[in-house]
């Protein structure tokens, strides 16, 4: 008799514990970790798993996130599967090494909990910490809920190890990191088969005597970025393919972009992270009132799935980009990205960049419903708009 296919174990977990479960199942060899609110429960859960002998990575607890990332890079360059986690100040402290990790083609998986950076101090959901790292060469995902975070962190190892680029998976502080929801846990065998150990092409200490990262001439440095570009260009399709094979194992879909009620939509919200759940409720309410609303969740942000976004927004009259972040001097980062993705497209929507929930301000579904009413027939506006 075949065992029933989908016998996942469902547990009540908050987003961070869902991540820790995903990491435990992915079984990295090395995990350098440094605490920071609201990431710390990931660290604590992994250390708890280790004390129970259910997680046997080499755990390093260095003095800073900077050293955690330095150790992660070096361990990954030596062929190990590596995980680390951080948030806000910690991620920003790593900045130099984020470029380094991508340039060194180390397939590290890092979980970042999106939190406002100081000054002033705050602990609130806001995505500018990771969005401001968008040029470092890391693949970036934004998750909506604990299940999404668990599924994505597991998939991230496969994506990273296929293209030899590091992956940063993000979820919002508290709204996801500390919210408890039922989470379906795949079996250890499922994940083991899904994440086969691949021999690394170049590995420090592999007997070849090859050094890594030594000074290089201009043309060769240039070539490294072309090679990264080639790697990045595979990621959108790879994400879709990895999502499909995950779906055959778990019946849960995950794609670079996720669309909800967009087929006949006249007005579409574009979101990342936890705002997606709120927007889904707003779409349902608007539909009940006869407004043809829809939703696009950008799950893969780097590389930006630009062609898919163009296809999804083709001939949609109006799109509202909901940015829970603010880049001073320009506005919302997703808004900028969409403007460039849609530039010159015939049939592009009127695009509004709405700064919603910057600094963790609560954005109820009613606010989004009101925005839909306010902007469905408004004059075009290229500038960022602060939403009360």
């Amino acid at each position, binding site marked *: 008799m075949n065992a029933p296919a989908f016998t996942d174990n469902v547990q009540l977990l908050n987003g961070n514990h869902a991540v820790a479960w995903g990491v435990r199942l992915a079984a990295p060899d090395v995990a350098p970790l440094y605490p920071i609110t609201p990431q710390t429960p990931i660290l604590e859960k992994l250390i708890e798993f280790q004390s129970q002998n259910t997680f046997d990575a080499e755990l390093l607890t260095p003095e800073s996130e900077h050293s955690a990332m330095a150790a992660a890079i070096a361990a990954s360059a030596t062929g190990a599967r590596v995980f680390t986690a951080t948030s806000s100040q910690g991620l920003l402290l790593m900045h130099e090494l984020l470029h380094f990790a991508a340039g060194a083609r180390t397939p590290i998986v890092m979980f970042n909990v999106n939190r406002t950076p100081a000054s002033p101090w705050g602990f609130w959901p806001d995505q500018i910490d990771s969005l401001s790292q968008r040029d470092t060469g890391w693949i970036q995902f934004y998750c909506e809920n604990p299940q999404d975070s668990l599924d994505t962190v597991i998939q991230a190892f496969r994506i990273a190890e296929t293209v030899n680029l590091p992956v940063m998976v993000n979820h919002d502080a508290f709204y996801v990191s500390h919210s408890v929801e039922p989470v379906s846990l795949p079996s250890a065998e499922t994940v083991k088969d899904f994440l086969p150990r691949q021999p690394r092409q170049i590995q420090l200490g592999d007997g070849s005597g090859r*050094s890594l990262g*030594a000074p290089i001439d201009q043309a060769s440095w240039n070539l490294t970025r072309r090679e990264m570009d080639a790697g990045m260009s595979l990621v959108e399709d790879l994400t879709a393919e990895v999502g499909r094979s995950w779906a055959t194992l778990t019946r849960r879909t995950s794609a670079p972009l996720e669309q909800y009620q967009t087929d006949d939509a006249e007005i579409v919200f574009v979101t990342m992270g936890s705002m997606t759940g709120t927007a889904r409720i707003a779409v349902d309410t608007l539909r009940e009132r006869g407004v043809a609303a829809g939703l696009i969740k950008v799950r893969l942000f780097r590389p930006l799935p630009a062609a898919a976004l163009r296809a999804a927004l083709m001939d949609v009259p109006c799109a509202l980009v909901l940015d829970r972040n603010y880049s001073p001097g320009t506005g919302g980062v997703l808004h900028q990205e969409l403007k460039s993705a849609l530039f010159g497209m015939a049939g592009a929507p009127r695009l509004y960049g709405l700064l919603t929930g910057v600094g963790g301000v609560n954005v109820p579904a009613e606010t989004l419903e009101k925005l839909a009413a306010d902007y469905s027939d408004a004059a075009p506006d290229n500038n960022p708009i602060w939403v009360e």
Partner: protein
Amino acid sequence: MEKISYSDEGQFCSGHVACAGCVEALSMRVILNAVGPDTVGVVAPSCSAVILGGHPMSAAKIPVLHGTLESAAASASGIKRALLAQGRDDTTVLCLAGDGGTYDIGLQALSSAAERNEDILYICFDNEGYMNTGGQKSSSTPLNAATGSTPLGKVTRKKNLIEILAAHRIPYIATTSPSHLSDMAAKIEKAKAIRGTKVIIVLIPCLPGWGVADNAAVKTARLGVESGVFPLFEIEDGVRYTMTVDQKNQPIDAYLAEQKRYRHLSDDARNKLQAEVDETWARLTAMVDNCPL
């Protein structure tokens, strides 16, 4: 004349790009041969990284990760843990860094690795300044030495990194000098056999940085040892101090005379420097004499 006892297994190749006459290259040859082929290295931006040469060539036979300036000890920790995860417990992980990368920007990572007692062998090539960026001061630059950023002489003393490291109670700390290559090889071999964090500080009189003649770096290093400016000793477990070479048989003048960075020194400044050396020497010999067995 001392006979040098170390065997060259070809671990450091010709074609490196050190300044002609540089004793850091000489030291690297001894260190790489003493540490042997079953080694993975990390190098911080510094003369040692430059000496190893540009991609795809390398003067080192061992593989080396060219890391960031402040992370040598953290990177080495990561390599060690990855090797442990692969069951390669016996491979040596070697750090090569300058004094800037050790006393200054990398001290935080080094202190943390030492506190965790990571199983790494950390070499600091101490040329008492930032030579890679053209010769500015570091916190290892001694009192009164002129550098690009202290043109009138540094007004504060050299940081006593060794005592800071000793306070971490790591299993092994030593100083060595290219004037005493057998001592250098012996200390590397001893350190290699110990599990835990080992730090060896190598005195490197830098030709352009110190204003030393092309053929005078070894001599300058020897004078540094014999004047007690750079005593050769080791500390086990942070408490057991041992002098490893007979030394301090002369005042600092011959040492200073080899170097243009002290050319401007007044008698008063020279006397202050001598007093500091004498005081440090007395403190060190007291540590040796009072050391627990």
